[in-house]
């Protein structure tokens, strides 16, 4: 019984020492509090609109007819696009695209109205800058919504002009309409898609690097290591006391970010909050585990460099922008060893998807596997270090 009380005492001692330490080290404290909060706040402001609307495009109207003016009005009226500039020739429109002032150029050919009404096919052309892919696709979506709708009206009037009754003409419009329902994110909101994934990514970088740094401070000097172990009264207690203060801080930061996401930016929570929290905790422990392992196996400067190299380019590998099913094998494998990949899966499952529990466990178990594997690596290394020291003594 007494021994048990000692164990708890040791843990608390190390825990308290770490907190006092944090307070006296502004850099370390900033890394686990203000820096992630500020970076996340900036990202939140960037994506606060959620949707990009009224992206500027230019129009080259070679027809100047009623029909062409109607098309321009329709394109301008879609939420995605705004016609900001009329140009007189193709070269001028091209220049505006090159200057980055518009994202696309809609060209309405000469005799458009005449040809269409006479039953000759006349093409409307939309040139769009897809070098900036998101923006390009969004402007295309706007034009794609407006022009085919106009074409539909035309077909109905063309056919009823040929004596077909109106309902029949309307039915023939789209013999095979596709009713598309976007599952899970019906408004295609970027805050719920990209921002929700970027916030944990920032935290992943900071959790790994800050842990490598905090632990490195102890590992660097053998004396401190001994103090740590003695204070803790055992390996596990010392380790837990060292690491948990940061876990608590990080989970608070993640909680603040998610509170804004759910509360202000309208992110849905369709799954289980408990599972979301559990996977968040395992994710942070896994990140800290990576930081610990790096700090124990490498000198501090190298450990921090390695931490940055692993987590810095991680976002691309986690399959949010470009999905993992489209990646080469190396990228898939590399992504699979990042805790963030699995946490984002669990997050997508529990937030926008609302995945039923029975299908939700895989990413959570993988994260648990990460934590256990990394913990064993840490223990292994600590035992080696301990044995080495014993040999010296």
């Amino acid at each position, binding site marked *: 019984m007494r021994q048990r009380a000692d164990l708890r005492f040791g843990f608390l001692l190390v825990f308290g020492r770490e907190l006092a330490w944090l307070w006296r080290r502004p*850099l370390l404290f900033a*890394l686990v509090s203000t820096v992630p909060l500020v970076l996340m706040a900036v990202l939140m402001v*960037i*994506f*606060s*609109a959620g949707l*990009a*609307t009224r992206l500027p495009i230019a129009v080259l109207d070679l027809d100047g007819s009623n029909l062409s003016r109607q098309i321009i009005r329709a394109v301008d009226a879609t939420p995605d696009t705004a016609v900001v500039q009329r140009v007189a020739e193709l070269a001028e429109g091209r220049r505006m695209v*090159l*200057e980055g002032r518009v994202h696309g150029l809609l060209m309405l050919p000469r005799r458009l109205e005449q040809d269409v009404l006479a*039953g*000759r*096919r006349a093409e*409307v*052309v*939309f*040139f*769009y800058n*897809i*070098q*900036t*892919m998101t923006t390009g*696709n*969004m402007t*295309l979506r706007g034009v*794609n919504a407006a022009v*085919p709708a106009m*074409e539909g009206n035309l*077909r109905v009037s*063309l*056919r009823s002009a040929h004596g077909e009754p109106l309902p*029949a003409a309307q*039915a023939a419009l*789209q*013999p*095979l309409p*596709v009713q598309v329902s*976007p*599952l*899970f*994110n*019906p408004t*295609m909101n970027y805050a719920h898609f990209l921002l929700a994934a970027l916030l944990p990514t*920032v935290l992943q*970088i900071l959790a790994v*690097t800050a842990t490598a740094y905090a632990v490195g401070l102890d590992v660097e000097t053998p004396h401190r290591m001994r103090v740590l172990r003695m204070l803790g009264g055992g390996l596990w207690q010392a380790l837990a006391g060292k690491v948990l203060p940061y876990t608590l801080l990080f989970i608070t930061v993640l909680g603040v970010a998610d509170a804004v996401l759910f509360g202000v930016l309208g992110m849905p929570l369709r799954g289980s909050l408990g599972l979301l929290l559990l996977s968040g905790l395992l994710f942070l422990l896994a990140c800290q585990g990576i930081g610990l392992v790096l700090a124990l196996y490498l000198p501090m400067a190298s450990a921090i*460099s390695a*931490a*940055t*190299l692993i987590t*810095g380019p991680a*976002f691309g590998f986690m399959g949010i*922008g*470009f999905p993992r099913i489209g*990646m*080469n094998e190396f990228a898939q494998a590399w*992504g699979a060893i990042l805790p963030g990949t699995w946490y984002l*899966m669990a997050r997508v499952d529990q937030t926008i*998807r609302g995945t039923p529990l029975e*299908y939700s466990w895989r990413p959570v178990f993988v994260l648990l596997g990460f934590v256990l594997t990394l913990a064993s690596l840490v223990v292994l290394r600590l035992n080696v270090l301990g044995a080495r020291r014993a040999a010296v003594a």
Partner: protein
Amino acid sequence: MKALLAVFREEMGRIFFLRPVFAVLIVAAGIYALLYPQPYLNEALRRAPIVAVDKDGTTTSRELLRRVAASPDVSIAFLAPDLAAAEAAIWRREAHGILLIPADFERYLLHGRPSPIALYADASYFLIYQRINSGVSTAARDLGTQVEASRLVARGLDPGLALAAADPMPLTAVPLFNPQGGYATYVLPAAFVLILQQTLLIGVGLLGTLPGRQKRAGPVATVLGRLLAYLVFETLVLPFYLVALPYLYGLPRLGGAWPMLALALPFTLAVGGMGMMTATLLRRPLAVQLLLGSIGLPFFFLAGFAWPSEAIPELLRPLTFLVPSTAAIDGFVRALQLGAPLTELKRPLLTLWALALLYGGAAMILEALRPKVASGLAT
């Protein structure tokens, strides 16, 4: 001038002989060049898996499925007997869409009525959603146009005319500069600029915080001499990132050398100045590494490249230009990928020069204010 050159020589030496600096400016830059592009190298997402539920089971419904399966965008992972089975595949991430062909699909078509099909596409991953949506819609539209045209032909219309009546005003969308819609072509040119900025920023930050600088000169000569060293260094690294890497990864490029060099000069000066300023403020090499390590990702999304600047709140927009990468990504991408000539790059050029003056000037002031410990010891 002599003092400036002495500072320049010292700084060049430090770049190559200080281990942490070398590790960031050369080793890390090399690793990023290899690692960062990996997720995108397949360029496009092809054959995104969907599940089909064919409640009709007729020749026409199978013809539609055949057309969908033939699309390069989607693949039919399997045919599910009902929606519940299809949904389970979505939950398990084995498929990302459900194509539902209702019973009576063929009968409706034969009767000349619209015969709708339903597509449930996974919008928790936007690129997958787009692929599936465009793949299925294109297949359905093609089949629909054919059905309608054949109806008109059956009514005695000339086939050519029938096609025009079925589709009198087609919209042709012409993607510019990245015609394949490749993801690597999209993201890498901008990401390379950001990596250049971040490695130089951290490198200069380390140079300014690691001990061992000997040469003393006036603040102006000191800052200019160091900037000269960064410029000379970047003549090696910048072309590697912006010319050699795109070539090796097979990214299309239109731009010439002059606009790139014109942008590279103020870009390097601005980032160098910013790095020196940060070094004075952060004071310790570890602080430089730790604080700048996590900042690259937000910088990327500030740039108005991945997320349009028009959608960034107006209040934040002017501040985004304080980071060199915002103007630099805009400038380099338009110069190199779009082939914009210098006359159309005035805005990023002016912004970068303004930042070079701002940060260079700030670095000089901070250098002038710095307590002269070294010289104090010498006297």
